[in-house]
């Protein structure tokens, strides 16, 4: 029977153990049954994967800096890893570019403001020298690399940068207006001087050349006239049939005309030379003036060149006319020479035949004999035959002569044509050049006008800007001045008020002092009365608290005290402030209704509890089977501890053993320290705790009540002390 009981109990008590054992064995078997290198394989693969991941991340970060930045931001120590593997990241490429751009901008601003300032200086200069001042401005800007800051905003920050590259060139200081105008005036004066001199020289040379050309042209015309006259006379002389005197007169006239013509031609030649000289000098002067490059003189130069050209053209025309006339005259003279030659030949023949006959044979018809006449007629016939023969020959040779003459004429014509073409080409070229120069001058004027308008616009913009700046400055200064004024006013006012206030304060102080003394006296009297009242009340309170304390002592060994309600009520009636009221409300209900146990009762109870607690020491939430109860009973029977042990100042984990706790608590109780005993007992856990729960509550009640009562009595004592007045 017992065996069966034992077996059944055994089965019941060890339901869990076999399973655990089997599971454990199973696991072991599983571990031993599997491959021996499974763990190693897993470890190796995981290591490989991790290293692959890290390597891939590093490589991609090297290629893509943004990825690197995100990884560094998100993963805490990756930046160290990356700097170790790849080196620091490049971040500072943007700053220098931005600085350069800003420097350029500021430079442009400076240039523009400088131009505007200069325009203000030049505002007084007249318009005719606009081109001069424009060139001056441009040259001035060209020579200034950096300027002291007249901009408002970023001057100081950036001027340092600007001056750094240009420290070797010293910044140009602002030239004062007078110096600039003086310089300009001087320059203008110089220009005017050169212009005047140039114009005078040009005019002089022009006049000279004009005179000379006119003279030359006149001379050429005179020559032309002379030549024409001479030719006419010659022709007349050759073709006319007049008497010998008239002939000689004619010949004389002819000779005169010839000499006249020669002289005229010489005059014309010399005049031409002079004209050419003067034209050359004019050309030289024009070249020189062109070399001076004074722009105002250009129209003058242009006019002079035109005049020169015209004069040259006229001169050439006259010269060609004269030349044609001369060629005609040559022909005529050749003809006359031929005629003279023929006449002379005829005369010679006649004289050869009839040596004694005179040249003028027309008046000799009566003097000649018949033989002479016959001879003369025969000679005349022979002559006629000869002449006919010559004529026939001539007719034959006519064509050849004509051809040769034509060729010659063609050659001469060609030459003349070439010459004419060349001269006309030159003229045309000259005219084209002059035209070009004229157009250039016009264009220049247009450009000048445009430039003037732009400069005027800039001047206007600058004046506007300056006006605005002035307005702003005015406002700022006004605000400043007003601020200063207001602050000064405020100061004065505060000082005045202060003084007034001081006076008033002094007066009030005196008044207050007197009043206070009066009040003090009254209060002293009142307070005496109040103090006595207070003393009475305090006395009352103290008495009631004493009654309460006495009622606490009325507990027996096993019974609680009387209910404290009545004494508490008395105390409540006597307490007149919040502290006491709060204390009274802090009294636990149980003590009021039922009363509390004394310390001795608790002590006795504890002693009986102790053995019980010892007996259930091992039982708690998880270990609470009957077997556990049995074990804890056995433990309590076998374990011996000191009845009372001094509790340490600090509890360690060993001291939380229930037996030890109980001995500490026992010691405390024996020595009257209920509070510490309760604290120690509070450390019990599990079933032991459940067992001593009631005792603990009772102990708490007692402690609370005692505390409150103690506080109240202390309070009453204090109040009483407070109300007593020192003698």
């Amino acid at each position, binding site marked *: 029977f017992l065996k*069966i009981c034992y077996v059944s109990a055994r089965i019941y008590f060890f339901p869990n153990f076999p399973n655990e054992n089997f599971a454990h064995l199973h696991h072991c078997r599983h571990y031993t049954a599997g491959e021996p290198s499974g763990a190693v394989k897993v470890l190796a693969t995981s290591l490989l994967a991790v290293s692959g991941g890290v390597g891939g991340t590093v490589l991609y970060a090297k290629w893509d800096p943004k990825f690197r930045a995100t990884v560094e931001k998100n993963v805490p120590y990756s930046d160290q890893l990356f700097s170790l593997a790849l080196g620091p990241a490049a971040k500072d490429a943007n700053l220098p570019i931005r600085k350069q751009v800003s420097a350029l901008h500021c430079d442009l601003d400076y240039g523009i403001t400088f131009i505007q300032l200069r325009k203000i200086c030049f505002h007084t200069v007249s318009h005719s020298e606009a081109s001069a001042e424009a060139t001056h401005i441009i040259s001035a800007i060209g020579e200034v690399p950096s300027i002291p800051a007249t901009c408002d905003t970023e001057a100081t920050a950036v001027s340092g940068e600007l001056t750094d590259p240009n420290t070797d060139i010293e910044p140009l200081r602002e030239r004062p207006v007078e110096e600039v105008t003086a310089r300009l005036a001087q320059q203008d004066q110089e220009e005017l001087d050169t212009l005047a001199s140039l114009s005078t020289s040009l005019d002089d040379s022009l006049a000279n050349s004009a005179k000379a050309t006119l003279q030359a042209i006149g001379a050429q015309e005179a020559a032309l006239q002379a030549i024409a006259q001479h030719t006419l006379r010659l022709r007349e002389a050759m073709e006319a049939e007049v008497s010998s005197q008239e002939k000689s007169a004619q010949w004389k006239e002819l000779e005169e005309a010839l000499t006249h013509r020669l002289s005229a031609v010489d005059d014309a030649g010399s005049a031409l030379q002079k004209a050419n000289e003067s034209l050359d000098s004019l050309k030289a002067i024009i070249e020189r003036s062109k070399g001076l490059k004074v722009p105002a003189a250009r129209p003058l130069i242009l006019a002079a060149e035109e005049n020169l050209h015209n004069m040259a053209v006229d001169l050439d025309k006259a010269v060609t006319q004269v030349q044609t006339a001369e060629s005609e005259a040559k022909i005529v003279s050749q003809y006359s020479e031929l005629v003279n030659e023929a006449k002379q030949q005829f005369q010679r023949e006649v004289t050869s035949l009839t040596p004694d006959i005179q040249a003028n044979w027309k008046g000799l018809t009566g003097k000649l004999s018949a033989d002479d006449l016959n001879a003369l007629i025969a000679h005349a016939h022979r002559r006629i035959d000869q002449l006919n023969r010559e004529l026939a020959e001539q007719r034959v040779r006519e064509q050849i002569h004509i051809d040769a003459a034509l060729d010659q004429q063609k050659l001469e014509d060609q030459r003349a044509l070439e010459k004419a073409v060349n001269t006309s080409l030159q003229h045309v070229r000259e005219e084209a050049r002059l035209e070009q120069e004229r157009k250039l001058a016009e264009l220049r004027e247009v450009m000048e006008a445009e430039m003037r308008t732009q400069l005027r616009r800039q001047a206007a913009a600058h004046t506007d800007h300056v006006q605005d700046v002035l307005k702003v400055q005015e406002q700022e200064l006004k605000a400043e001045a007003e601020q200063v004024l207001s602050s000064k006013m405020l100061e004065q006012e505060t000082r005045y008020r202060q003084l007034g206030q001081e006076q008033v304060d002094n007066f009030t102080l005196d008044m207050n002092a007197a009043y206070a003394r009066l009040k003090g006296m009254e209060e002293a009297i009142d307070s005496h009365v109040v103090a006595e009242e207070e003393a009475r009340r305090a006395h009352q309170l103290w008495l009631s608290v004493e009654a309460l304390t006495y009622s606490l002592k009325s507990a027996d060994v096993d019974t609680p005290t009387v209910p404290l309600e009545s004494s508490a009520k008395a105390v409540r009636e006597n307490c007149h402030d919040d502290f006491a009221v709060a204390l009274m409300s802090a009294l636990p209900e149980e003590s009021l209704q039922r009363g509390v146990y004394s310390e001795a009762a608790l002590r006795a109870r504890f002693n009986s509890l102790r053995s019980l607690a010892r007996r259930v020491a091992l039982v708690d939430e998880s270990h*609470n089977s009957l077997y556990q109860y049995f074990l804890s009973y056995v433990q309590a029977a076998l374990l011996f501890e000191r009845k009372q042990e001094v509790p340490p100042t600090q509890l360690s984990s060993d001291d939380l053993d229930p037996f030890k706790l109980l001995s500490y608590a026992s010691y405390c109780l024996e020595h009257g320290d209920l509070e510490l005993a309760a604290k120690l007992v509070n450390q019990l856990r599990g079933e032991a705790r459940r067992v001593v729960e009631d*005792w603990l509550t009772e102990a708490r009640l007692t402690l609370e009540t005692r505390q409150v009562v103690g506080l109240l009595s202390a309070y009453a004592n204090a109040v009483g002390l407070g109300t007593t007045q020192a003698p």
Partner: protein
Amino acid sequence: MSEKELGKKWDRCLADTAIKLGAGLGLGVVFSVLFFKRHTWPIAFSSGAGLGMAYANCQNDLRSHYVLHRSQKDQ
């Protein structure tokens, strides 16, 4: 008085054990005599069952504070 609880529980436990054991014994005797030809095993069996039931009851009673009941769980 919480210290008296345990004593009460033990009293109940013992009473219960006695009753159950006695009842088991009795029933075992009866059954053995009536149905099982006076073998001893029914007596042992039923008394063992009775003892076992008493044990279980005792343990539950002692544990009852720590075990959460269904009604409490629903609450």
